[in-house]
């Protein structure tokens, strides 16, 4: 094993290795971005939701609902952008059920979120019954050719910067927007105040319930979009339970990001990246047991979390203090 690692390091020191590996590295980054995008969508939505003080464990269910309705809409109309819109709104509708239950009827957030996942898995399977085995036209990449004239790396760089499908850029935009919203905008500050101390936010006169409603709905919108990305772009098909646990990973990423949008991207790329890297290492025939390689993304996420969590004060600043607690206006 050690010998193997040493020889790999030795080969990696040579310039020939890097020249020959460049296309592979670039290709891997492309694959990584696609793997990270549904996680970025869902995690950004959940982050805003949690920042308002609401913990919604129903991300997996909302993703599946988004995936199936988005696929169905596209299959019927042949219009992929419309499908994405439907995916987002159906995710938001599912989130509304959760919002009414937890915010108006004060039901337990953790249990209601899990119930939403069960509900979503069942509903999506039922709706998707007629769409198994159907095909749609995939949303392709938008190749904007601006850097073609740059010598040597022009083509690769062009692909790297502009060769993704449009939704990758949308995800990044939403992430940036969310970051701006939380840190720079007035409503973002109010949302954070609601999440940190609902009682005082209410006392000042902010509509706590309405703000949380909006945040939960945004969470559903994004989860639905993430689901739609899976069924319309990532793998243009509908199959039961096709999210296969990505909603849970998105939830973990919010914690990993310590409730800061920029770190969501870091987490999603780390998780998606290690997943792709371990597959690459397998394909290259490195000879490390595949079952251990498959554990890597999970273990690495824990390890990195431990490193970034050691600074306790900074984490506490970001974690919404009211997360998961029901709020009822006293007067």
């Amino acid at each position: 094993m050690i010998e193997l690692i040493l020889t790999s390091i030795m080969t990696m020191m040579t310039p020939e290795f890097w020249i020959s590996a460049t296309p592979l590295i670039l290709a891997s980054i492309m694959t990584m971005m696609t793997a990270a995008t549904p996680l970025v969508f869902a995690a950004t939505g959940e982050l805003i939701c949690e920042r308002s003080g609401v913990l919604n464990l129903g991300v997996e269910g909302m993703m599946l609902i988004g995936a199936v309705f988005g696929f169905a809409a596209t299959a019927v109309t042949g219009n992929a952008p419309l499908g994405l819109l439907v995916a987002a709104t159906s995710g938001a509708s599912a989130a509304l059920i959760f919002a009414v239950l937890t915010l108006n009827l004060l039901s337990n957030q953790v249990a209601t979120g899990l119930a939403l996942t069960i509900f979503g898995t069942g509903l999506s399977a039922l709706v998707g019954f007629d769409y198994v085995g159907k095909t749609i036209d995939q949303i392709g990449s938008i190749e904007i050719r601006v850097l073609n004239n740059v010598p040597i790396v022009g083509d690769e760089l062009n692909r790297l910067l502009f060769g993704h499908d449009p939704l990758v850029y949308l995800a990044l935009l939403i992430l940036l927007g969310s970051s701006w919203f939380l840190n720079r905008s007035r409503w973002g500050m109010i949302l954070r105040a609601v999440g940190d101390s609902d009682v005082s936010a209410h006392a000042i006169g902010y509509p706590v319930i309405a703000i949380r409603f909006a945040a939960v709905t945004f969470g559903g919108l994004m989860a639905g979009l993430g689901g739609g990305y899976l069924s319309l772009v990532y793998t243009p098909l509908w199959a039961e339970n096709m999210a296969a646990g990505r909603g849970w990973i998105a939830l973990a990423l919010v914690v990993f990001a310590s409730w800061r949008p920029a770190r969501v991207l870091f987490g999603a790329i780390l998780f998606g990246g290690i997943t792709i890297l371990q597959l690459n290492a397998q394909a290259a025939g490195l000879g490390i047991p595949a079952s251990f390689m498959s554990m890597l993304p999970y273990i690495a996420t824990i390890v990195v979390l431990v490193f970034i969590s050691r600074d306790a004060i900074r984490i506490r600043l970001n974690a919404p203090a009211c997360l998961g607690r029901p709020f009822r206006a006293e007067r």
Partner: protein
Amino acid sequence: MRKTIRLAALALASAMTLAAGTVSADKLKVGFIYIGPPGDHGWTYAHDQGRLMIDNMLGDHVETTFVEGVPEGPDAERAIAKLAETGHKLIFTTSFGYMEPTLKVAKRFPDVKFEHATGYKQADNVATYSARFYEGRYVQGQIAAKISKSGIIGYIASFPIPEVVRGINAFMLGAQSINPDMKVKVVWVYTWFDPPKEADAAKVLMDQGADIITQHTDSTAALQAAAERGIYAFGQASDMIQFAQDTQLTAILDNWGPYYVKRTVDVLMGTWSSGDTWDGMGPGMVGMAPYTNMPSDIAMMARATAESIRTGAFHPFTGPIYNQAGELVVKAGEVAADFPMLATMNFYVQGVDDKLPE
């Protein structure tokens, strides 16, 4: 093949109408336990097609039921027992992990016949059956070697069990029969069904230079990921041509229907007996989807290979076969034995570019 079965079924049906006095008016209830949803378009889908064939051909005498999404583990025994309790007299349990639960339930219901897919333990009322999918993999290996320009083939594997290892080996042997230098890169995804992950594996393999993708997982995702880049690939379990019009070369078809109809007829006639069935192309349990997107000479070669396997003239595991260590495991001119070599296969043949997970 389908025709002969259909004829047999028709003959049976008319025989039974004639002998209506001796046959009870109650329909025979046949139950199925599925590991996934019939909507997976893979393994469970293929079994459900088999069930529908029973419905179509024997619908007047038989009623079928299925329980889907039964996880291997504590729930399996209950689901099987429930079918037995509700009057099902023939029960197909269609995943390996149902082996022990099937045997346990069979002990409690001696008058019910059980059919367990891919297992190896039989009992008086438990038969086992499986298909020689490796026959199709050999044909695919030959096609891949003919078509590949890079000489590298990407193989997406689920779990390191004999069935999957056998498939990789058969594919490799097929490829080597055309081009001894062919390379097969293997990625284990440790899942039967996770479309995005299957797609990722396909992309990674293509990134590393594979220009043909083949899979032993259940969804269409890998095939589609390949199609997106214009890379040729093979379908799995059923014809997936609608997902890759221009790039699917062929697909292995799991054709359980004829066996299911035959066993149901056996129970109806009272001639059912336990045993182990391991059928391939000969009896039609394994089929090949049309050879598409390839030059006609390659299609002809594939057809010829499949035909010689079907008639029994050729066996994919014909020696000389060497393992990765270079040891001769099957002598020249000999054929690998079903047991133990094929059934318990846990080694790679020479040339596979991977280390078998232990």
